[in-house]
C-alpha cells in the first residue's frame, strides 16, 4: 500500500522547554489504514496531531528537527491551507472548533476559504453530511445539537474538503458513552465504505480498540509499541507501565489465558466476549 504519512526522526520542544514533547519519533501510515494512537496525558498525542496537520511548525513555535511528509509534501515547506486539503482535522472541544451558527454554514466554511463556487459547495455539503449520517440536521442551529452531533458536524466539515486522511485528536473526550460510540461507528464506516485513511489519537482504549486495525502507543514522545490492538492488549505489563486503560473484556480473557483456559485471540467487545465464553462453555461441557 502507498505511504500517505511519513514521520522521520521528528523531535519537537515547546518554547524553551528542556523536555521534548516528541522525541525522535518515527511513524508511517499507509493509505486505507485506521490507526489508533494512544498514550497517557502528556505522551505527545496532541503534539503529534499538530505536527501532522502543519500547525507545528507553522503556527505553534518551538524547536524542532526531523521531517513530516504528508502525501509527498514536507509539512514545514507547505502552507497550512494547502495541507488542509489533504488532512482533515477534528479536535477535542466541539464548541471551540466550530465557527458558524448553523450546520450548513459550518460545513461550508472550509469550502468558502478555498473559494469554491456555490454550485460545487452544495453537493459537497450534502455528501459530507450523508457520510456521517446527519443529513437531516443540515439546516439546524449548532446550539440545538448534542456534543456527539456537534463532533459529527466537525467531521463532516473536515470531509467536505475531501481530504486523503482524517486526523482526530481525542474527538470523544467530552462525549458520553453513546456519543463516543456514535463517533466511532461513523469513523468505521468512513474507513470501510469510503476507504478514508484515519489517524485517531485517543485515550479511551476500550472504546477505540474494536474499530482500529493498528494501535500505536506513545510514551514521553516516543513510539513504544506498534501492532494490531489484540496483540498489544495481550501485553499487560506494557499497559500497566504506560498507565493505559485496560479494556475489561480483554483483561478478563487474559486472566483465563493465564489460568490455561483460553488460547484464542483476545475479544475486544462485550459481544465478542459473550461469543467466546459460549464457545468455551460448550467446549468444557458447562452448558
Amino acid at each position, binding site marked *: 500500500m502507498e505511504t500517505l504519512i511519513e514521520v522521520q526522526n521528528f523531535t519537537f520542544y515547546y518554547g524553551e522547554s528542556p523536555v521534548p514533547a516528541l522525541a525522535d519519533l518515527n511513524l508511517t501510515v499507509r493509505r486505507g489504514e485506521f490507526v489508533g494512537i494512544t498514550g497517557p496525558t502528556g505522551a505527545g498525542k496532541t503534539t503529534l496531531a*499538530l505536527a501532522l*496537520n*502543519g*500547525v507545528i511548525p*507553522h*503556527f*505553534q513555535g518551538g524547536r524542532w528537527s526531523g521531517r513530516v511528509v504528508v502525501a509527498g509534501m514536507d509539512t514545514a515547506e507547505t*502552507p*497550512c*491551507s494547502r*495541507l*488542509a*486539503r489533504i*488532512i482533515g*482535522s477534528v*479536535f*477535542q*472541544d466541539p*464548541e*471551540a*472548533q*466550530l*465557527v*458558524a*451558527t448553523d450546520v*450548513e*454554514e459550518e460545513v*461550508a*466554511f*472550509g*469550502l*468558502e*476559504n*478555498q*473559494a*469554491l*463556487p*456555490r454550485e460545487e*459547495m452544495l453537493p459537497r*455539503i450534502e455528501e459530507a453530511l450523508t457520510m456521517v449520517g446527519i443529513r437531516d440536521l443540515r*439546516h439546524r442551529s449548532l*446550539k440545538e445539537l448534542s456534543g456527539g452531533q456537534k463532533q459529527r458536524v466537525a467531521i463532516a*466539515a*473536515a470531509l467536505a*474538503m475531501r481530504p486523503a486522511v482524517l486526523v482526530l485528536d481525542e474527538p470523544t473526550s467530552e462525549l458520553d458513552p453513546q456519543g463516543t460510540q456514535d463517533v466511532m461507528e461513523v469513523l468505521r464506516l468512513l474507513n470501510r465504505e469510503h476507504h478514508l485513511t484515519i489517524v485517531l489519537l485517543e485515550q479511551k482504549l476500550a472504546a477505540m480498540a474494536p474499530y482500529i486495525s493498528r494501535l500505536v502507543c506513545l510514551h514521553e514522545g516516543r513510539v513504544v509499541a506498534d501492532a494490531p490492538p489484540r496483540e498489544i492488549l495481550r501485553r499487560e505489563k506494557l499497559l500497566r507501565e504506560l498507565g493505559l486503560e485496560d479494556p475489561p473484556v480483554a483483561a478478563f480473557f487474559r486472566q483465563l489465558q493465564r489460568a490455561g483456559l483460553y488460547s484464542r485471540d483476545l475479544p475486544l467487545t462485550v459481544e465478542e466476549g459473550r461469543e467466546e465464553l459460549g464457545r468455551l462453555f460448550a467446549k468444557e461441557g458447562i452448558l
Partner: protein
Amino acid sequence: MPPASFLHNLHPLTKVVWSLAVVTAAFFLQGPLPLLLLWASVLAVAGAGKVLRQVLPALKGLALLAGLFFLFQVFLIREGNTVFTLFPAKGIGQVTDVGLYACTVLALRMLAMTSTIPVLLATTNPKDMVVAFVEKLKVPYLYAFMLVTSLRFIPILQEQLDLVLQAQRARGRDLEGRNFIKRVKAVVPLALPLLLVSIRRSRTLAISLETRGFGSGPRTHLRPLAFRPADIAATAACLLLAFLVILL
C-alpha cells in the same frame, strides 16, 4: 428554523437603511404624538415580520431604560410652570410642564430609535450581516469575522461562568455578599479561570481556522445575497419617508 417572512428575506443592508431612516426621522420629529406614531410604525414592521413576540423582552427592556431616562431628566428642568413638587416642604423635586413635555419627547425619541435594533437582529442571520458588510460595504472579511465570532462566544462564556460559579460555591465560597468591596473582591477568582479558559478556547479556534484554510486568499460565500426589487423598493420608501420628515 426561524419563521420566514418578507422581513427575513430582505437584504441586511435594506434593514440597516430602515433602521437609519427611523433614527433620522426620530431626530427631526418634535412632538410626542409623531414620535409615538414612529415607534408604532417600528412595532408594525416587527409585527409584519412575525417577530413581535420574539423582540418583546428586548422592547420591554428598552422601554424601562427610556422610563429611567425620563425620571432622571424630569427633575432637572426648572423652566415653565410647576405642575407638582415631590417634597413640597423642602422644595425638592419640582416637575414643570416644560420638563414633562421635553422629557416625554426625549424618552419617546430614544425608544423609537433603539427599537429597530432588536427587530434587525431577530430577522437577520449574523452570517448574512457579515456577508453584506463584506460584499457591499467592502469591510475586510477578517474584521467582520472577528465581530461575529465574538458574538458567538458570549453565550459560551456565560455557560463557562456558570460552571466556575458552581465550582466555587461547591467549595464553600460566598459570592452573594451585600458588601460592595467584598463583591468586587469576589470577581478576581471568577475572572481568572474565565480568562484562562477563554485563552485556551481561542487557541483551539485559531488552530481550527488554520487547518481549514482560513485566510489563504479570496473566498466565496455559500449564501450570496442578492439585492432584489423588493429591497430597492423598501430602501427607496425608507429614504423617501425620511426625506419627507426632514422637509416638514
